[in-house]
């Protein structure tokens, strides 16, 4: 027995369809997983922030994913008057990334290092958004001997745009 009749006799069609179903189900599950990865990671970050909250009092602040509704971690010299800045879409996302990246440098950070790290991580339009955050006053230059280094301006609250 050869050809199509041999395939039919050995359950070949059933095996083929089963194989197709398994492969496409796997691909569909993988696609769904990738599509919801940002939500899963945000959920993970919130979980980590929640777990670390009791231990990080007075330290550098919550995890990046938990920053959407919060301002930057206040620094000791918080003399700026309270102000709210509304950020939307990509700017808010980049703001959160930048907060996370600068936390690794400490309260005072270097803009060139920040841009370098942002580019390495594929953050969208880091130069443009850095300029935007500087113009909005969210990032300020330090005075005196520390000139040329920057920090998140204390006393500014960042809220997502409606």
């Amino acid at each position, binding site marked *: 027995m050869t050809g199509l009749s041999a395939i039919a006799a050995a359950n070949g069609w059933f095996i083929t369809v089963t194989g197709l179903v398994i492969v496409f189900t796997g691909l569909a599950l993988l696609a769904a997983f990738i599509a919801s990865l940002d939500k899963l990671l945000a959920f993970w970050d919130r979980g980590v922030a929640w777990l670390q909250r009791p231990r990080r009092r007075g330290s550098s602040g919550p995890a990046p994913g938990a920053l959407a509704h919060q301002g930057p971690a206040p620094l000791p010299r918080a003399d700026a008057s309270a102000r709210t800045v509304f950020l939307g879409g990509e700017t808010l996302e980049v703001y959160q990334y930048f907060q996370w990246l600068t936390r690794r*440098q*400490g309260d*005072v950070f*270097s*803009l*060139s*290092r920040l*841009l370098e790290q942002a580019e390495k991580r594929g953050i969208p*339009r*880091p*130069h*443009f958004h*850095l*300029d935007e955050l*500087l113009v909005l006053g969210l990032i300020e*230059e330090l005075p005196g*001997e*520390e*000139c*040329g*280094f*920057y920090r998140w301006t204390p006393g500014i609250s960042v809220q997502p745009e409606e």
Partner: protein
Amino acid sequence: MVEASELRQSPFLADIPDADVQRLAEVAVLVHFSESEVIFQVGTPAKNLYLLKSGSVLLSFPNGRALVIRQPGQALGWSSLVSPFHHTATAVCLTDSVLYQFSNAELFSLFRMDAGLATRITAKIESVIQERKPYRMPRTAHGEGESRS
């Protein structure tokens, strides 16, 4: 070449006589840079002086310090007029930017013909060098800078 009247508006040249601005306009070239584009790199030969027309440029120094140039008329690339003619910082555009570019060869030719212009431009460059001197100092307070001068 650019229009002298256009160049006249640059604060850097505010107190430069009209005749000198006219000469500078004749050697100036308007150059456009895109967001994230590098204008010059630290340590590379400095061949051009720039005056910002529009946009925003980040000057990054090897010690980690950085300065944002956003005011029209601010100068970049003063190293093109000062020995050893190597850039002391990297200039990268934060936004799309337009600058007036002056070749140092052209400027030196102008200076040879007009000592007064040379004196005036040199004085301006000197003030820019002094203004940016703190940015070239190694960082000491937090001990994080690369301590390269």
